[in-house]
């Protein structure tokens, strides 16, 4: 049956895309005789450059699974990075309090997003866009440049290595695994799929839909603050524009979609998202190896994001039809 074929295809699409991207990468590297890009370290390094995107996208996966969306992550990343480096101000003893405070901010922002969406029934796009403006405004009013700095010890998060593999990469993989366990093996995780798949049916079966949606938003925002902490650790300090410059809102949505999670909710998962992140970082590397200029890269990215969403929109429509 066509139906079943399409289902399998959708589940495997991210994998095939990843293979295609990888093939292109190797092909271009060989064709341009730049085999130095093909070493193992370099390949590992590829993913290493997308840690912040990966962490954010894992969070975005939760809200998209529940049929919502979060456009405030980029600005929340900036807030987290600036706040962390401001509170730490190079003082190691302030590391733990800073991390706790930053994550609490994430919990708060996520809860507000979730409550505005569920209680005030504001379209999630608008609710989180509004939140994005709010965060950006507050941050820019208080900080205009790099604020404070993180102590050397905190930079271990970004630059440290365990057995030759970077701490941040291990962290991303651990986070993905944790998210997978949560979604797959816990009741709450299972509820996220159910509420996202058919909120009415879930409600009829007695699930608490509001609570689940708010929780998904909290998880998303907390992931964004962790991404902010990572960026502060990498840059040594936080600045109010780092989230926006990384286009983390749109890119996190794009990699989630490319990873096979449906924008309409209820289908997909975090491993797909991780593949989406790898596809994106491969694309970046392909542009680098092929010598595409930085701004043209941005054009290509815009086109690729729309094409990817169109690709999945067409596929998933066939299933519903």
């Amino acid at each position, binding site marked *: 049956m066509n139906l079943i074929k399409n289902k399998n295809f959708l589940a495997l699409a991210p994998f095939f895309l990843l293979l295609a991207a990888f093939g292109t990468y190797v092909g271009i590297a060989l064709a341009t005789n730049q085999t130095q890009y093909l070493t193992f370290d370099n390949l590992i390094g590829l993913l290493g450059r997308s840690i912040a995107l990966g962490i954010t996208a894992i969070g975005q996966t939760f809200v998209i699974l529940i049929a919502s969306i979060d456009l405030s992550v980029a600005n929340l990343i900036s807030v987290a990075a600036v706040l962390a480096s401001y509170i730490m101000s190079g003082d190691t003893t302030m590391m733990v309090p800073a991390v706790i405070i930053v994550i609490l901010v994430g919990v708060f922002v996520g809860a507000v997003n979730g409550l*505005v969406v569920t209680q005030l*029934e504001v379209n999630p796009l608008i609710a989180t866009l509004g939140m*994005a403006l709010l965060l950006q405004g507050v941050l820019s*009013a208080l900080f205009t440049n790099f604020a404070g700095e993180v102590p050397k010890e905190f930079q271990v998060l970004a630059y440290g290595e365990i057995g030759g593999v970077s701490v941040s990469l291990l962290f991303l993989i651990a986070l993905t695994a944790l998210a997978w366990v949560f979604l797959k093996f816990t009741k709450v995780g299972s509820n996220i799929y159910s509420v996202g798949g058919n909120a009415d049916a879930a409600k009829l079966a007695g699930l608490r839909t509001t609570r689940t949606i708010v929780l998904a938003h909290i998880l998303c925002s907390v992931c964004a603050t962790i991404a902010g902490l990572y960026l502060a650790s990498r840059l040594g300090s936080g600045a109010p524009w780092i989230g926006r410059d990384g286009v983390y809102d749109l890119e996190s949505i794009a990699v989630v979609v490319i990873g096979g999670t449906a924008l309409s909710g209820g289908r997909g998962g975090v491993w797909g998202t991780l593949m989406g992140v790898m596809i994106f970082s491969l694309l970046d590397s392909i542009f680098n190896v092929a010598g595409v200029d930085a701004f043209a890269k941005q054009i290509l990215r815009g086109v690729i*994001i729309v094409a990817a969403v169109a690709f999945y929109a067409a596929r998933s429509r066939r299933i519903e039809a």
Partner: protein
Amino acid sequence: MNLLKKINPVFIVLALLIIAIAVLSPHFLQPTGYMNFLKRAAPIVILAIGQLYVINSGGFDLSAGALVTLTVIGSSILLDGDPSATWWVIGVMFAIGIVVGCANALVVSYLKVPSIIATLGMMITLSGIALTWSGGAPRGYLPENFRFFGRFLIKDLPLIKILPVALIVMVVICALLWWLMHRTNYGKQLVAMGDNPYSARLAGVPLVRTRMIAFVVSALTAVMAGILLGGFAGVSTDVGVGLELQAITAAVIGGAQLLGGRGSVGATVAGALVLQAIFTLLNILGFPKPIRDVVQGLILISAVALASYRRRKSGG
């Protein structure tokens, strides 16, 4: 009482804000005061009306701000101070606008990409083009006859003393787009489509054409706003940043229904002026500029929340 209920509250809010500004800053009542206010409001008013066309069709156009930037950057590079090139460059910019609008509409209509994603993609693409073209920093400069629209003031008039050209442009565009929205078959079809695309299709409304015109109108207003901003603000690479959100906020303040079906040009103009008045007020009160974003975010959320609360109440 009935009459009061019929008046869109945005007009009352606008009146109150203007009174507040006038009280806090008496200079506002001088021609140079209010004319300057209107001149500065012109780009956002024009953009908001363009955005209203897309909102009434049931979508969003997030690429408008990036198109403003592209217009400013592109014009300054193409012109590089040569006044004789102004007219064809303006023509090229409007042609780019038509292409962008058509592309947005085609992606939404045929690839079934939600308009918010499609136009976000367009936004990235356009700012990429602007950056590639300029190499990341503003180049070239705009000749005086290009800047005429944004900057020139007609002086020594009776009563009002001065009249910015930007204001004339704004009034003409408002009138034209008011007519198209509220006094043509097209406008009525547009709103009906945003209200219920399925029923509009079954009533014979050509959806693709209707949507395409809406996106093209939005893109053309963005180009026009770019020409005005290039005129009075000069060339920079972030001139259009965030303008699309201001335009959406203005339309929402004016009572436009997100996802289509209801929204008037007059109220949107008032909405844009309210937004500009709030910014002016924040300025007078000495708040730092970023506070604008905070206020705008709050307004956006509360306007939509209020609308959905009212809908729930009336819908039972």
